[in-house]
């Protein structure tokens, strides 16, 4: 079976459309982030998260009413399958909770409120994160994502040419931002697991890009006469089958995780699903486009270096071949 044999799509032609589409998604996400604020889970913001189980079905409203006197912006939602009668209650960080004894106050008061409302809750899980830990994790999370991006850029810069490294990292950064945007659209909280998924995406999404760049490098050796954009487009087409199939297998396994992995891993699985799709899209449309754009800018300087390439055409668009497309948009 061979769906993607000898494809010859002109991906490069669509590069500006792709870049604009990505910008729209990223800006929409950023807009939401500014207006609504980044929805940090308690891992980062601090606070209390309880999963309580009831012996019989309880409506969310009943639970909300029971804990209403506690004040603050409590979140009450179904946890897992409705038949399990589990409900998640999240309480914000309380003011002035620095002292160790006070850390569990929110949880104690919520449990007491539920009991006095005639509901008999059994606490299945209780997570209480103090402000010190939350702030520390925030700092470390940001540090880890940025260091990861930097380290991968350095590695690719070392293995390929610099413009490729920039292309790969822009594509990876693109995936991180698009994933964040979709987390905003679908109102997922940024939890530790979500950050773990984002870090995994940075490592994963660059894989596809490396495969294409490896092929570009190989093709550049044998086709020095062709313009870079054509070589890149050909490389994208040659590796297209592989790109889509590997994304497909990863997507399938993450889909299984999303569907069957349970409530606790849902945010992780969702982040990975978006990341895998975005990673494939950015590999085909963004990474190579950036690499070409950067190479073209350096094209005039590149001339002198590539003695074997006649009249610098190796790094610039060949005029006359696809004149209208080359200038498209």
């Amino acid at each position, binding site marked *: *079976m*061979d769906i993607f044999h000898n494809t010859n799509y002109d991906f490069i032609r669509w590069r500006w459309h792709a870049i604009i589409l990505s910008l729209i998604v990223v800006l929409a996400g950023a807009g939401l982030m500014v207006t609504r604020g980044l929805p940090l889970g308690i891992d980062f913001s601090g606070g209390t998260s309880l999963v309580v*189980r009831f012996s019989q079905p309880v409506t969310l409203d009943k639970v909300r009413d029971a804990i209403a006197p506690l004040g603050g912006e409590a979140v009450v939602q179904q946890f897992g399958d409705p038949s399990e009668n589990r409900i998640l209650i999240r309480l914000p960080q309380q003011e002035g909770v*620095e002292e*160790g004894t006070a*850390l*569990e106050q929110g949880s104690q008061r919520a449990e007491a409120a539920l009991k006095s409302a005639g509901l008999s809750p*059994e*606490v*299945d*899980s*209780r*997570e*209480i*994160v*103090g402000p*010190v*830990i939350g702030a*520390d*994790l925030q700092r*470390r999370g940001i540090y*880890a994502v940025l260091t*990861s991006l930097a*380290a*991968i850029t350095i*590695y*690719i810069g070392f293995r390929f040419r610099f413009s490729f490294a920039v292309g790969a990292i822009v594509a990876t950064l693109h995936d991180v931002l698009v994933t964040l945007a979709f987390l905003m659209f679908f109102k997922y909280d940024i939890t*530790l*697991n979500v950050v*773990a998924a984002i*870090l*995994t995406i*940075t*490592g*994963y999404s*660059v*894989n596809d890009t*490396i*495969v294409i760049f*490896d092929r570009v490098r*190989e093709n550049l050796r044998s086709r020095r006469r062709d313009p870079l954009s054509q070589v890149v487009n050909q490389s994208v087409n*040659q*590796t297209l089958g*592989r790109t889509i199939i*590997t994304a497909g*297998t*990863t997507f*399938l*396994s*993450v*889909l*299984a*995780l999303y569907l*069957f*992995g*349970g409530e*606790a*891993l849902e945010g*992780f*699985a969702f982040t990975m699903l978006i990341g895998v799709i975005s990673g494939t899209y950015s590999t085909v449309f963004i990474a190579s486009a950036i690499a070409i754009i950067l190479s073209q800018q350096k094209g005039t300087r590149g001339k002198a270096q590539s003695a074997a390439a006649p009249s610098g055409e190796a790094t610039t668009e060949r005029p006359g071949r696809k004149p209208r497309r080359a200038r498209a948009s």
Partner: protein
Amino acid sequence: MMKNMQWRLGLIAIVIGLSVWAFYPPGSKVKLGLDLKGGVHLVLRVKTDDALKVETDTTVERLRDTLTRASVTFSKIEATSPTEFRADGITDDAAFRTQAADVETVYDRSSETGGYSYRIKPNVANQLRDETVTQALETIERRVNELGVAEPIVARYGARDQILVQLPGVSDVRRAKEIIRSTAQLQLRLVDQGPFPSKEAALQAFNNALPADSELMPGKQEGSGAAGTAGSAYYVVKKVSAVAGNDLRNAQQSLDEFNRPAVHFTLKQDAAVRFGSFTEANIGRPMAIILDGRVMSVATIQGRITDSGQITGITREEMLDQVITLKSGALPASMDYLEERTVGPSLGQDSIRAGVTASLAGLALVVVFMIFYYKLTGLNAIVSIVVNLLILLGLMAAIPVTMTLPGVAGFILTIGMGVDSNVLIFERIKEELATARGARAAVNAGFDRVWWTIVDTHVSSLIAALLLLQFGTGPIRGFAVTLIIGLLSNVFTAVFVSRTMFEAVLARRQQAQTLSI
């Protein structure tokens, strides 16, 4: 060629055998994290300032003594912060400097108008803080062992003053937290007056001016109602204690004269001598037994007491807990809880079930897809995924790596991402087959050409996974380690195992031009 093949197949068989042997049966060999088996994860912060304050207070005390004995005049020497103190009104500078010489091995001196200020040396402070955390760690370990928790973890964590405590399968989290945090500072102090029903009442009795050497202290709030300790009560007690936390030799369960629960404690030799002369000098006066800043009970000193005492008026549970904390020794500093994560066993069970279902579903989806798309060659990829998962489980059991909920996600990702390398190789083989140089050449070229691509993709994924390892707390680390092992064993299975299988198949068909791919 055949010999080489046998050697390679043998190696693969040994690796599979060792892996299965390492993790079978998984129920007992694969360690589960708290989020899967239930339990509590706590992060505490040791207030190391407490220990520095004790050091500074003692130094001040000693310096005052030394100066007084040497008849060196001063107006005031007092601590200004946990790490600093001031000496004022010094008239004979040379004499003062001689007497204060050994203070300067620990404190840096700077001149101020009319005296000196001292600040603890940074390296001494760091060392003290470090010792305090180590001592707290050891004390918590003893307490956790007394609690009888199986496979607890007590370790330093994150920042220098943090301690991680993991207690699997603990159901009474509140009690465990109290026992761990209790400083178990036992003090015996003289009582000025009390009990009073409220703070205000106590202050009023002294016309709002407590004696300089006394302080207000709350009584035990909940209790069995023994005389003088029930309800909320306040006492005015002396600041100085006859014994300190580390003067305690032992504590054990006991009964008071009315057969009610009590804790019997004994003092160390030198403390007993001090306590003997202290009680002798104060016969007839009331003395408070204070535990962790609360007056537990008050009794009138009837005669000389040397090495033992009793805490009475407590419930059975309090007795059990106090024996544990007093026996394990006092904490050198108080502690705060920074984080608590508790998972009940039923939620853990459900997570395991969901994880197993998701893994099987993920594997099934990928298997169906690979056979549908690559036919017989798809089987090759499936064998290498399965071998990869076996090695992953085997290494996790052997190292051992704790399987956490995010670790399950890493396991499932290894299925989907591991097959990446196989697809890369297969697609290349397909391309090479099109050039019609025969199946064997195509397979060889396929593997050789993508080798560096595989290295590059694995390195970039490893970079992200290593940073994840550095970033993460317990469960996330489980994920990172799973991912790292999965990536490394994937290189072995997708390249070595898969290629060996190709060659084993092709060895029987010497002139093969085609492959079922």
